[in-house]
């Protein structure tokens, strides 16, 4: 567990802190995510993706739940995704972070904003449409296009 912590705690903590904006709350989520992994290591299936990606998704979900003061809605066993880029080491993680920031920086501000409101603030598409005053369909299109742009950047 100590080895896993040393390798991936920066991912988990950074994601939790980005959502919650509070170091104490982020530390609590960090504890919770690693303890869940300790209690149930089989919830992560190495054949389906990298542990860093899985931890990032699990952490973001837990942090959003915490942000909204709600009980955890997603069981960690339910987080399934297909093979993501190999983010096994610190160097790969750092390169990935750089690349994602590059793609996000190149997006139109409205598209980046829609993605960030959904991802980091846990807003629904209706809430985003209401906040930005844009049609629901536009928000949907922007969010999907944003995710696909990220995917393509890692396919090349």
């Amino acid at each position, binding site marked *: 567990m100590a080895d896993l912590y040393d390798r991936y705690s920066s991912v988990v903590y950074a994601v939790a802190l980005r959502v919650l904006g509070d170091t104490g709350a982020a530390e609590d989520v960090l504890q919770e995510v690693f303890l869940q992994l300790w209690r149930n290591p*089989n919830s992560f299936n190495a054949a389906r993706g990298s542990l860093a990606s899985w931890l*990032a998704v699990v952490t973001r979900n837990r942090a959003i739940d915490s942000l909204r003061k709600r009980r955890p809605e997603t069981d960690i066993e339910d987080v399934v995704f297909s093979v993501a880029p190999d983010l096994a080491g610190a160097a790969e993680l750092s390169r990935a972070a750089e690349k994602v920031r590059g793609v996000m920086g190149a997006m139109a501000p409205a598209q980046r904003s829609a993605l960030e409101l*959904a991802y980091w603030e846990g807003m*629904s*598409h209706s809430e985003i449409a209401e906040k930005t005053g844009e049609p629901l369909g536009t928000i*949907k299109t922007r969010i999907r296009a944003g995710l696909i742009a990220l995917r393509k950047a890692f396919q090349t």
Partner: protein
Amino acid sequence: MSEHEQYDEDLALYALDALRGDDRAKLDQHLTACGSCRLELERLRADTALLAMSAMGPRPPQRARQRLLDAVAREARAPLAHDVARRPWWGWLGWAATAAVIVFALSLWQENTVLRATLGSASARQAESARQLEQLRKIAAPIIEPETQRVTLVATKTPPQPQGKAFYLRSRNSLVFLASNMPALPPQKAYELWLIPMSGSPVPAGVFKPDAHGSGSVVNPPLPAGLEAKAFAITIENEAGSPTPTSPILMSGTGE
């Protein structure tokens, strides 16, 4: 537009947990029947993980590491509530008798729990349970009474060999493991027990450190329900335990 294209944008929202209400319910229903949309959802979830990487930078405070390791150590110790080191007289006993009593007691306890839950018409069964408990006390008396004289017989001039016995009751998810003559461990290391399932990777089944006499035990570690065991094995891992074996198997055994 094909049926799947119709869901493309909703799938992206779903992956971000940004789809709510009727749209989500409709997509949930579609996902139960559509493999290609489930696959695309998995891909989109992987894409959201990339988005998370943009937050990289801040590092957790030093104290967080120790806090986690302390919490893990506390949980790792929990299965050792019946550790031989704390009750040295267990180590004097024949494993089979000890484990049989423990498994029987656990089974009885679980049975009692169920009985209590269905108390309404269960007074007769409770009486039966009480009778069984009394029987258990009689069976266990020579083993658990402090004044009992305990003697272990071994072959003369034979160096004691490390041995472990696992008693696994799959239907009740109960596992009792007793070890003896285990060599001392390097600092900050522990023995980790693994349940080797019929298929798939070894499942962690508790860690233990032997006492001064080389005895140790694991009682009812947390395990996935109903797992069929092909074998059990022991490796040496860090004392907090490992989710997967990281060292060679030292001991292993299949069913008797």
